[in-house]
């Protein structure tokens, strides 16, 4: 129910073994406190999370889909930016 009294919030969850909070969905709530409780009730019912962030969706500045050519295509031809041309010594282990 999208009304001026219940704006949209974006929900980020940090899982048990995850290092970073990951975006997992959105919800409607009257304010930050209720958004946090709703996030808990909707997104952590199966033990998914140990920490929750909620952010007003209106606080997010998004890139324009119509500009994706300008924004992202120039990176596609620069394969040398992928660190796949190095031999990693075995002693280094996981990087």
């Amino acid at each position: 129910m999208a009304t001026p009294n219940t704006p949209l919030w974006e929900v980020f969850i940090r899982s048990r073994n995850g290092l970073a909070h990951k975006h997992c969905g959105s919800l409607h709530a009257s304010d930050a406190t209720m958004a946090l409780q709703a996030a808990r009730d909707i997104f952590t019912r199966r033990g998914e999370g140990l920490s929750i962030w909620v952010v007003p969706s209106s606080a997010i500045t998004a890139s324009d889909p119509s500009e994706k050519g300008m924004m992202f295509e120039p990176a596609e031809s620069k394969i040398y930016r992928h660190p796949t041309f190095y031999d990693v010594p075995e002693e280094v282990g996981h990087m």
Partner: protein
Amino acid sequence: MAAPSIKVSETPLVLYVLRRADDALILGHRLSEWCGHAPMLEEDMALANMGLDLLGQARELYVYAAKVEGGGNDEDKFAYLRDVRQYRNLLLLEQPNGDFARTMVRQFFYSAFADLYWRAMMKSTDTTLAAIAAKSEKESAYHLRHSSEWMLRLGDGTDESHVRAQTAIDDLWSFTGEMFAVDDSERGLIDAGIAIDPADLKPQWLRTVSSIVAEATLALPTSDWMQQGGRFGRHSEHLGHLLSDLQYLQRAFPGTTW
């Protein structure tokens, strides 16, 4: 042929556990009635979650009651095959959902009690009850927080939500005294350290409830006349209707399974 009701040997401990199990089952069932009907999807989930917490508490308590009783009863028989006069829940918890404000006020009054109750019961000399209390306390603490937040928003929200919340408080207030009542069968368990004396919880309950209600710009009634009866099977007219819904399948098709 409809399934007949079971007989229960209500020793003090069996009765004590059944009373708390019935509290959890009946309030949990009331909350489940909101499923698909809540004012918004987010709250639909919140109410169902609380209902499931309570159903989990009810199951553990019924299993323990069956073990203590030592007869042929089990959790399903306690839930599905006792008549309304055999139910021992608080009258407050069988009251109809009404509007959202009424459901939240009922939840708030009870959760403010349950949170204190389960925390105190963690020190029970009965290790099973202490373990159930440790799990239930965390759930009740969240139910209290959630319902408290709604009390503030309903009371201090719009004129309409304020009136609805205040009406619910006025209508449900007389059912709150039963939470703190003790009868002879419970007195012995309290003396043995198995149960706690709920009267000891009342000052703290009143402080919690009063401060939230005041912050929500609402008011508690001054009347101290209180309803009694649920603990002894004397219920309001609402519980029978609830049970006819809850028990229909097992009564009509005894022993049926999914």
